[in-house]
């Protein structure tokens, strides 16, 4: 009984923290204020016209706030005949990492360098002129092997790509020894601007995965130099401020205009995952899988992790790192129950446990060295092996043997329980 109270307390605390994190108790004066109908004018408008060679485009938006995504109409003027690119990014940041083990074209060696930034915008997208729609379709057909830097070049947006490029990318030289002792490796010197930009493009791809998420051909150009774009901000993104910059080349850029993306309960923002989710989604999924896991006698982690990375756009590192601690409690209480009746061989458990500690030290390091696609691929095979094991456990031969084992186990358990009770009685 005590334990259920404890669990209830844990659940209540968790709910409270989520609410608090979500700002449910904070004052929200801006929440109900009607969005101004008039567009937000960029100060660059006047300045742009006085300098014809590098005229900066202007940018206006029709609303300044969205509730969990929506459509914003962006309009403005640019020098006639020049394509306009709209760069949109969130102020909230997430971590992005990529392990470079591809053969270098020049040296023929594998570099084994881990690139990482903590400042990747939680949302980043480049909106390009509508004429590039087919180019994007073609890139999409390349599947998982598409390259963001090539895609930017193909649509002529490589010169205007700037927001993620400005964020510092750290890099670590991974070594076999380093990986064994679970180290990221020695930090390498910081890169120059060009190299940093190139690596940041790879990180954009690593974080957002598909070309749809980071590029879209929505900017409608008119012959008189005006443009119009309906920007769709999808649901489930980070809350907070978003910036829009219109650019025609590297220097001719508008000042950023900003809008606010708001989310409200039951949506919560997972700051490490960079995603807003309806909290009931993962809750009921976990509940269902936990019940099923106990019934089939295997932890739920096997089913949980692949489902979580498939349903929500969460990084596999965050999923693996967050699901693991959730089973700690149930494992701990299981051990406590078995130890109460002395039904554990401490010698055996600790001996193998020490080997497992070494394994558990290395494993989490390796998670960030693989891509989501590799994560899914390996998980697919793990699940097939697991399915094989489970199938074996339902074969008649195994069941018969298991029945005998279960009977012996019950007998032993009873003996152990009686012994534990007798001791208590004394």
């Amino acid at each position, binding site marked *: 009984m005590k334990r259920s109270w404890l669990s209830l307390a844990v659940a209540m605390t968790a709910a409270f923290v989520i609410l608090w994190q979500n700002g449910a108790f904070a004052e929200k004066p801006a929440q109900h204020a009607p969005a101004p109908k008039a567009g937000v004018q960029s100060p660059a408008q006047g300045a742009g016209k006085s300098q014809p060679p590098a005229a900066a485009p202007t940018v206006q938006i029709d609303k300044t706030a969205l509730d969990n995504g929506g459509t914003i109409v962006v309009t403005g003027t640019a020098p006639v005949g020049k394509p306009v690119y709209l760069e949109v990014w969130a102020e909230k940041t997430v971590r992005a990492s990529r392990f470079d083990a591809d053969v270098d074209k020049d040296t023929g060696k594998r570099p084994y360098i881990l690139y990482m930034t903590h400042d990747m915008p939680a949302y980043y997208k480049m909106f390009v002129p509508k004429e590039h729609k087919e180019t994007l379709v073609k890139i999409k057909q390349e599947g998982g092997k598409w390259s963001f830097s090539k895609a930017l070049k193909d649509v002529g947006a490589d010169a205007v790509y700037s927001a993620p490029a400005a964020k510092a990318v750290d890099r670590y030289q991974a070594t076999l020894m380093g990986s064994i002792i679970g180290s990221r490796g020695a930090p390498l010197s910081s890169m120059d601007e060009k190299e940093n930009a190139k690596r940041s493009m790879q990180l954009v791809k690593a974080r957002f995965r598909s070309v749809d998420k980071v590029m879209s051909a929505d900017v409608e150009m008119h012959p008189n130099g005006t443009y119009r774009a309906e920007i769709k901000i999808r649901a489930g993104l980070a809350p907070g401020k978003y910036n829009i910059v219109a650019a025609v080349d590297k220097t001719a850029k508008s000042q950023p205009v900003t809008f606010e993306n708001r989310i409200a309960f039951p949506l919560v923002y997972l700051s*490490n995952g960079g995603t807003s989710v309806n909290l009931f989604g993962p809750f009921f999924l976990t509940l269902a899988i936990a019940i099923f896991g106990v019934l089939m006698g295997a932890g739920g*982690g096997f089913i949980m992790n692949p489902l979580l990375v498939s349903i929500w756009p969460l990084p596999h590192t965050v999923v693996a790192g967050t699901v693991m601690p959730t089973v700690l409690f*149930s494992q701990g209480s299981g*051990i406590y129950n078995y130890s109460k009746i002395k039904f554990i061989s401490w010698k055996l458990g600790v001996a193998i446990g020490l080997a497992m500690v070494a394994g558990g030290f290395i494993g989490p390091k390796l*998670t960030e060295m693989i891509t989501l696609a590799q994560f899914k691929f390996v998980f697919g095979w793990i699940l097939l092996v697991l399915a094989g094991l489970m199938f074996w456990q339902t074969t008649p031969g195994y069941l018969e043997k298991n029945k005998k084992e279960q009977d012996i186990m019950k007998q032993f358990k009873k003996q152990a329980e009686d012994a534990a009770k007798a001791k208590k009685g004394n």
Partner: protein
Amino acid sequence: MIVHFWGHEFKINIVLGCIGGFLIAVVSSMFGFGGGPFMVPLMTVGLGLPMYVVVGSSLLAIFFNTLMGTMRHYQFGNFDLVFFLIMFPAAILGGYIAPQIAKRISPTTVKRVAVAGLVILALNLLGVY
């Protein structure tokens, strides 16, 4: 190594157990699951131990791995507190509901359903469909 358990003695190959445990730990902490379904066959089939020795002791061994894996994932910044607070109460609640259902349902049936489910999920992950 000789393991004593309730008046019985078992001679096991601890080297095999440790190597197996190590490999299971690397993979399970890398992919963020417990590892129980692999540990139990390792200890019953690989080490030849009876089920009643394995149930508690395998849990203890896995606990070491989960604890270490959790700490390392936290260190590498893979832990999301809000996400954890959503899933954790659900996992505990599931642990209380499951035994109530378990009385009315055969574990063999559950396992057969699980096999089908796992294969479907695996094929999806492998990109077969």
